């Protein structure tokens, strides 16, 4: 596992890695307009991590992906989501304070990127949580499996 896979897999991974991540961010960004959203986009980004993990093995990732940093980012994503939900508590929990307000995400055109009030922000929060969450699950599983192999 730790040694990674063949040259073909590694080369293809180098090409597609960035593309997958960009596509994942696209899905998160347009979550309020098109099918997809924070979870789906985050899962796509995490799949890039999974691909790299399989292709290069755990040795190559040690410096690049710090598990503790990932877990902290995951908490930040969750807290941001909850914070946005709390923001509406003047009216009701989860009340969309930015919708139709005319400010940043309060556009009236329902198809514009800058619309949907707090929804895009929540998508980003969820996306951050999911991509870091799945990445750390993958790392933990790989570490568990590797320890097993050396025992």
């Amino acid at each position, binding site marked *: 596992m730790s040694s990674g896979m063949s040259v073909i897999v590694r080369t293809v991974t180098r090409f597609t890695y960035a593309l997958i991540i960009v596509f994942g961010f696209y899905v998160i960004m347009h979550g309020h307009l098109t099918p997809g959203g924070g979870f789906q986009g985050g899962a796509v980004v995490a799949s890039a991590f999974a691909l790299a993990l399989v292709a290069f093995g755990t040795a190559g990732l040690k410096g690049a992906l710090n598990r503790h940093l990932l877990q*902290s980012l995951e908490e930040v994503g969750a807290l941001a989501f*909850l914070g946005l*939900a709390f923001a509406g508590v003047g009216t*009701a*929990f989860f009340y969309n304070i930015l919708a139709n307000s005319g400010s940043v995400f309060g556009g009236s055109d329902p198809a514009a990127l800058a619309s949907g009030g707090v929804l895009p922000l929540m998508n980003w929060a969820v996306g951050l949580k999911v991509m870091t969450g799945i990445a750390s699950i993958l790392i933990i599983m790989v570490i568990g499996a590797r320890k097993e192999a050396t025992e």
Partner: protein
Amino acid sequence: MNALLHHAPVLLVAVPLLGAFAVPLVGKLGSGLRRFFVGLIALLTTAIAGYLAASFYAAGASPIVYVLGGRLSLPSGMVAPIRIMFELDGLSVFMMLITALAALAAVLYTSSFWKERSGATLKDSLMLLLIVGIFGMEMTGDLFNFFVFLEITSIAACSLVGFRVWNGRSQEAAFKVMTLYTLSGLFVLLAVGLLYGQYGGLNIAYLATMIGSGAALVDKIALGLLLTGLAMKAGAVPMHMWAPDAYGEAPGAASILLVANSQASLYGLFRVLFTLYGSAYSPQSLAWILIGLAVLTIIVGVTMALVQRDLKRLIAFGAVSQIGYMMLAVGVGFAAMTALQPSDFGFVALQGGLFHMINDAACIGLLFLAAGIVIRRAGTRDLQGMGGIAHDLKWTTAFFMLGAFALAGMPPLNGFASKLMIYESTFRLSPVLAIVAILASILLLAVFLRAFQAAFLGPRTEPTDVMRPVPISMLVSMGLLALVVVAFGLFPGFFVDRIVTPAAQALWSGRDAYIQAVMSGMGG
């Protein structure tokens, strides 16, 4: 209505959720700060629950509805009638109080372990998450959200069972429990899908109005799935095998939350039986199925407890048998309610069963917490290897004894008060059942006396842990539960009138009020 009270239902879920996610970040600043933070969140949650309950009872116990996201009105002027909401009636508030008690005791207990173990941050986070899920299950007025909260409790509970990854037994238990929990969750989801497909709604009150007296086949299948799933998760026979594994392998403080979790599933079962289907479709046969399962659960729980050598598994089987008592009482109440001539003893049975829930949470919790200290001190969970604990741990011994006597239904403790109500009402329906229940209770006393004798009495054994006094917060936590055990036993009438009767009323005749609280707001 003031703002805090208005938002209290959602804060009860949101505050521990915020805590659960903030704990790892706070934990980076130091473990002392983290414990303080977790304790603060638990106290805050309990305070909100207490405040909500106090004003709920003061206002005459009429259902509270909280709509998430506010009322939505589209530009066309159309108002979305039913949205995701929390709905609290007497039963929900009563269950909420039980959960708040268990949560406070668990967090206090865990806030000072003798020494910090690895994974303590994770444990705090998961415990708060479990509290979120339990509160959510008890308050939600939406069937799908009920499933979501059910799954939150499943995931958090199983992680708590299995977070000691260095222990093979806990992994095995966690795998078993998770498989069964997932299965029960999928049964519930399938039922939700069936009801949605049939009626196009997910709100419990709305669905309750749609289910006719001659329930369609789809309704019956959905009812079967819901009851199977929830009984499985509550730990009723024949799907009880996960319960001793889970209770036995989870850390002491988590065990009491797992008990609260089982009770929340039981709450779901009652909600489905009495509110969702209720007077519209309630055949007598259903009551007898419930009673049959309950009696089996009592018998299996007690007899399996007899042969246990592991202290925690022994208590766990005791907990399984108590789930049987609650189901028995509510089954008797259901039978009396659905009979052609509804009789009053059914209401007493409901009161007894519900009262027993809070009593069970207190005395089983007390036993688990005391057992946690005993096991830590003795260094083993095997009763044969223990002995003489009473010489050093006076308070723990007293608390364990109190819990055991209360659980077995000895007067004047709380277990006696509620079991007496159960016996009385069950006797009116069927004397044989009452006798079985009483005999099982006596047998349970014998089981716990044996455990007490093995663990606490006898010559002093070499303690494996360093001799140190039990931390004060653990004693406070057990003292809290002991106070409930004694107070509810000495003044049962006082507490039954104030908190149990509104809950029993909600089951007995509160269905229309529950539905009305949501459906009357449709136009506005």
